[in-house]
């Protein structure tokens, strides 16, 4: 009989990571220790280093050559971004990196940004990773002085003679205070203070004195000859910044619906701690309310959650590493290509008829492709005819032996409930239990029951929840 701890660990791992690998599922037996290990693991981090500064330099120099070459350069850069994407998925699904990587994903969505420049993309991703669990002020400063962000939100063009408000606006609206907690004049004044913040050809932050507006500004009720750093400090002095961030973090890790009593307490402690992100997360994961039934299994996985979750749960390796890119595209969430500066949608927005149909079929594609007994013609996969070529990419390796050892139950019923416990964050209803049992009876002995049951469970709407 599985105990209460077990369910709590499952919930914690569903939220702080992308679920558990089978080996973790067996090893994690004590909640306190699991949390402790997760936070200890998160102290270390690994940067992604796929494009060197020298390579970037070469890329940059060729950019100045002539018009027709630019396309080629951008193409090569995009290829590099693909590799960075694949490397990041690797880290996201690495059990020892889970929490920091998940938080890096949160901030990547929060500071949503696009760039065609692979070096800038890599640099920003590493910057976010470095500060993901540190002090928010450090993260905010680093991102505000990051080449990709300065480029994306046009602060490079923000000059005293011709202020560009784009960065200042998103800074207040999306990154810190949230709509309704500043005025239009605040945006204008912040933009003035941020004039001169730019980057050089090396992708380093530079303060260009000549285009900075040294005059007096009035920002959020304060007066002074503010520069960009002053603006960030003033924003952090506002308790609203702590509230805005805490609510968003709460929605990401706990529940789409905010509990204002809880988030207010969390926000004020976050504020008092000097915006210590790690402490805030620890407080969330060690609170009793985090494990309330109402907070369990009630979040719809984003496409990246879903893809990473499948890889973790089935311990699977795609033969073609680009499979993860295809899946991100198919589900509409491609890392490094957020739809806009507001980031990706959440929850129900991910689920429509076609995306749900594809999600429910995907485990079957992957698992059938992994089977050496697989001998269906491509035509049988024709229901996703447009993806026919792409489905070949989904060939993967799954070590079924380890699952066989884990779940070889005495009865079909036991096997189904054990697999459901491993894969689902909500209980398996009797209806679905019977449905899978009937299916198992109908296929006879020719099939591996563990594989068939895991496939059936991963193809349920319940598997879309974490």
């Amino acid at each position, binding site marked *: 009989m599985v105990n209460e701890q077990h369910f709590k660990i499952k919930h914690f791992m569903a939220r702080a990571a992308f679920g558990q690998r089978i080996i973790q599922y067996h090893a994690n037996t004590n909640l306190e220790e699991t949390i402790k290990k997760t936070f200890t693991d998160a102290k270390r981090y690994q940067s992604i280093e796929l494009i060197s500064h020298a390579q970037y330099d070469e890329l940059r120099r060729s950019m100045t050559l002539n*018009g*027709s070459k630019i*396309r080629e350069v951008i193409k090569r850069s995009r290829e590099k971004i693909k590799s960075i994407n694949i490397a990041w998925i690797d880290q996201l699904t690495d059990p020892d990196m889970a929490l920091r990587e998940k938080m890096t994903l949160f901030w990547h969505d929060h500071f949503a940004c696009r760039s065609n420049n692979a070096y800038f993309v890599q640099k920003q991703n590493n910057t976010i990773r470095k500060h993901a669990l540190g002090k928010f002020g450090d993260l905010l400063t680093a991102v505000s002085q990051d080449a990709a962000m300065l480029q994306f939100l046009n602060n490079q063009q923000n000059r005293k003679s011709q202020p560009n408000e784009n960065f200042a*606006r998103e800074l207040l*609206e*999306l990154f810190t205070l949230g709509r309704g907690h500043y005025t239009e004049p605040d945006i204008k004044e912040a933009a003035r203070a941020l004039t001169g913040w730019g980057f050089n050809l090396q992708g380093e932050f530079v303060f260009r004195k000549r285009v900075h507006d040294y005059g007096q500004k009035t920002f959020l009720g304060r007066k002074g000859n503010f520069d960009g750093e002053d603006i960030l400090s003033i924003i952090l002095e506002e308790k609203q910044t702590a509230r805005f961030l805490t609510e968003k973090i709460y929605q990401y890790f706990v529940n789409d619906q905010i509990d204002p009593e809880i988030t207010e307490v969390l926000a004020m402690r976050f504020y008092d701690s000097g915006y210590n992100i790690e402490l805030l997360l620890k407080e969330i994961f060690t609170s009793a309310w985090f494990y309330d039934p109402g907070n369990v*299994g*009630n*979040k*719809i996985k984003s496409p990246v959650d879903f893809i990473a979750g499948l890889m973790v749960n089935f311990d699977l390796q795609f033969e073609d590493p680009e499979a993860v890119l295809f899946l991100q595209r*198919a589900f*509409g969430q491609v890392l490094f290509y957020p*739809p*806009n*500066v*507001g980031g990706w*949608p959440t*929850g*129900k*927005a991910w*689920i*429509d*008829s*076609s*995306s*749900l*149909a*594809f999600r*429910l*079929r995907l485990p*079957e594609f992957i698992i059938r492709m992994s089977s050496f007994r697989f001998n269906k013609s491509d035509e049988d996969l*024709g*229901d*996703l*005819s*447009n*993806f026919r070529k792409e489905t070949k990419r989904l060939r993967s390796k799954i070590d079924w032996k380890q699952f066989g050892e884990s779940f070889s139950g005495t009865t079909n019923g036991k096997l189904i409930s054990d697999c459901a416990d491993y894969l689902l964050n*909500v209980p398996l209803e009797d*209806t*679905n239990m019977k*449905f899978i049992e*009937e*299916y198992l009876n109908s296929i006879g002995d020719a099939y591996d029951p563990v594989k068939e049951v895991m496939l*059936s469970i991963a*193809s*349920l*709407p*319940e598997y*879309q*929840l974490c």
Partner: protein
Amino acid sequence: MLASGSLLVPNFLKAMNATNSNLTKGPNGKILVVIQLSGGNDGLNTIIPYRNDIYYRERPQLAIEKRHTLKATDELGFNNSMNKFKELFEEGYVSIINNVGYPNPNRSHFRSMDIWHTASNSHEYLSTGWIGRYLDASCEGCAKPHDAVEISDSLSLALKGKDVKGLAMRSPQSLYRSISTGSAKDLSQLHQDKHHENDQLHYLYKTLIETTSSVDYIHEHSKIYKSKVPYPQNPFARQLKTIAEMIGSGIDTKVYYASLAGFDTHIRQKMQQERLLQTYSDAVHAFIKELKEYNRFNDVMILTFSEFGRRVKQNASQGTDHGTANNLFIMNGNLQKPGFYNEGPNLKNLDAGDLIYDIDFRCVYATLLDKWLDIDAKVILGGEFEGLGFV
């Protein structure tokens, strides 16, 4: 072996079945077809101001010579690849609205497309689309996914509402196969009469049940009519052919969505754009021919738009860069104001080299919502936008 659950059919399914049974009598509703030209079509080389000196001065290599334009008025002519479009125009089936845009235009493809899809302000980020919100508002919980169908693999933001989302499919057959070969269909039958306490799980099953029902419905009815008109052999024409067959079969979809991509012509624009414009006009011509043949063109309003136009001045690579305001096309068998709805762009009065918009695109949406789809546009657009006189 499976419970049918027919005793406790939820309301939204009852509503769906009711509509289904009406269908055999043939629908009388109005239909909107949206065609998206992705990438930012160069409106100035689509509708050419062939007597404008500034146009020829700013585009020394790229301007279309006067003798190569298909003249529509004394000032404006069509790109010479659009002879089929010109035929439609001369029949009075086209209304061209010039200088459509929005305040503080954004030159990023994805952001500007978002703005067109969500009908938001330039600085506003919405997670629902204008057609999706139409579904949300159209009949208080009884809207069905197939009320809005996009012929595509995945659903565009435009068709995503908060509670109801449209249906994306390559063809009625492809989605039917996808739903009927896995366990999805069985699961939706098993869960038809169930209420799930978990709100998100309830939403997942609701979506699954509605999808299965919509897909079954479309699949059942889509065989009624087979196209009788020859279409060009390309994916875009196939999208329109699929739509024509669905309309001809009496399927009660209210909004269809199709798209043609490749208009981002920074380099060597001429050939590429001409090929695309020809693809567009030939396919639309065949589509309208079919609608006329089965006598539904008066019930079908076609809107064609692109996320932005391009800069007036050509660039150094025989192409054009991202611009702002653009023309858009409305087509229907019974237009109130065929021809040019308003004057062509004023090339003397530019904003840093870009066209200045006269008509907010949300006025076009408001007109379609209020006068065509018969719904209060204010609710959908979150503000008052003046209706136009093309309907």
